[in-house]
């Protein structure tokens, strides 16, 4: 059995990451108690050989923690097993059934990644926002196409440059929020339009 085959990773999103093994319950308890007052480091216990030796893994844990450079290869799905510890169920579940655990982990991955994919595909298909200069009501993309500049005020409102210039000259305030503005109260912005 290789080390990677045996290792399993239990992760807490905001709390210390605990790597558990198919170790005995006694050991697991000790790991948890150690990590609960630890920092957010990742602890890896790799081999059953180490588990069988009660001293070695502890020392190794300390070393890794002090180094702060413990690395878990997450690119290979087969080598590690992810268990979310943010849900209490995974904390108390006995790790006897490894296959079930693996299924859970796989399920977890799919549920968390699914909305992200939805969001991405939505972004791809959604139409470009219609943005107009609030003063002349001209669409900003045609302002840019005409080679004119777009400006932002210090209060964060966007206009075409000719409009905000005239507004500041005549009203001395932001056309949107009425905040007092001077000639220095606005500047060009450069929208990354492709």
């Amino acid at each position: 059995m290789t080390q990677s085959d045996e290792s399993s990773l239990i992760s807490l999103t905001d709390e210390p990451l605990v790597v558990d093994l198919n170790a005995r319950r006694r050991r697991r308890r000790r790991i948890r108690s150690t990590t609960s007052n630890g920092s957010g480091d990742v602890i890896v216990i790799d081999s059953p050989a180490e588990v069988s030796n009660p001293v070695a893994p502890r020392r190794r844990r300390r070393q890794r923690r002090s180094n702060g450079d413990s690395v878990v290869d997450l690119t290979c799905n087969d080598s590690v097993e992810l268990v979310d510890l943010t849900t209490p169920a995974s904390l108390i579940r006995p790790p006897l059934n490894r296959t079930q655990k693996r299924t859970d982990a796989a399920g977890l991955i799919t549920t968390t990644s699914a909305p992200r994919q939805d969001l991405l595909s939505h972004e791809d298909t959604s139409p470009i926002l219609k943005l107009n200069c609030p003063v002349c009501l001209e669409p900003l993309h045609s302002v840019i196409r005409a080679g004119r500049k777009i400006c932002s005020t210090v209060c964060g409102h966007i206009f075409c440059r000719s409009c905000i210039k005239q507004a500041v000259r005549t009203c001395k305030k932001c056309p949107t929020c009425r905040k007092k503005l001077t000639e220095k109260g606005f500047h060009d912005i450069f929208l990354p339009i492709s």
Partner: protein
Amino acid sequence: MSSIATTRIQRELKDIKESNNQSIKIELKSDEFNNLRGEIVGPSGTPYQDGMYKLSIKIPETYPFNPPIVSFDTRIWHPNISSVTGAICLDILKDQWAAALTLRTVLLSLQALLSAAEPDDPQDAVVAKQYKDNQKAFVKTARFWAQYYANAPGPRDTDCVEKLRKASEMGFYKDISLQALSTHSWDLENAIQYLTSC
């Protein structure tokens, strides 16, 4: 008229047409873009409900950096609108105007004003006083005016109809009689006394 004002009014008219809001309307009075006619529907839950209120809108040369000049053509009984001239007391049409506001937002604000009067900042002192002192008479008068001038549907108050008939039978113009009766909270005797004295 400046080009920015003209192009903006053209865009605004197009936007209002596209927005498909049935309760507000804006149209050109002539070929000029500085003279427009607006119309709003009285908001539901108010005495003005379903009344059609015509507005005259004048666009200044400096629009949109200065507000449009708006007044009611249709007569209305409201603390913030003159019952005689139709002049409106609304902050966004004065010092609180912002260039990002549009005719559409102005008309929506007027609808909101009909829903929520500000009697402490009145345009018509007589109406505002009645609004504060005699709410029942105010609602009765505002509703009757909505039906009489703004074609609001529904049966008219028989007391109002009767008193208005009596006053006009005495030879006073209907509009003047209605104004006098409304000012005196439908006290016929006081209204007649007022009409004969002036």
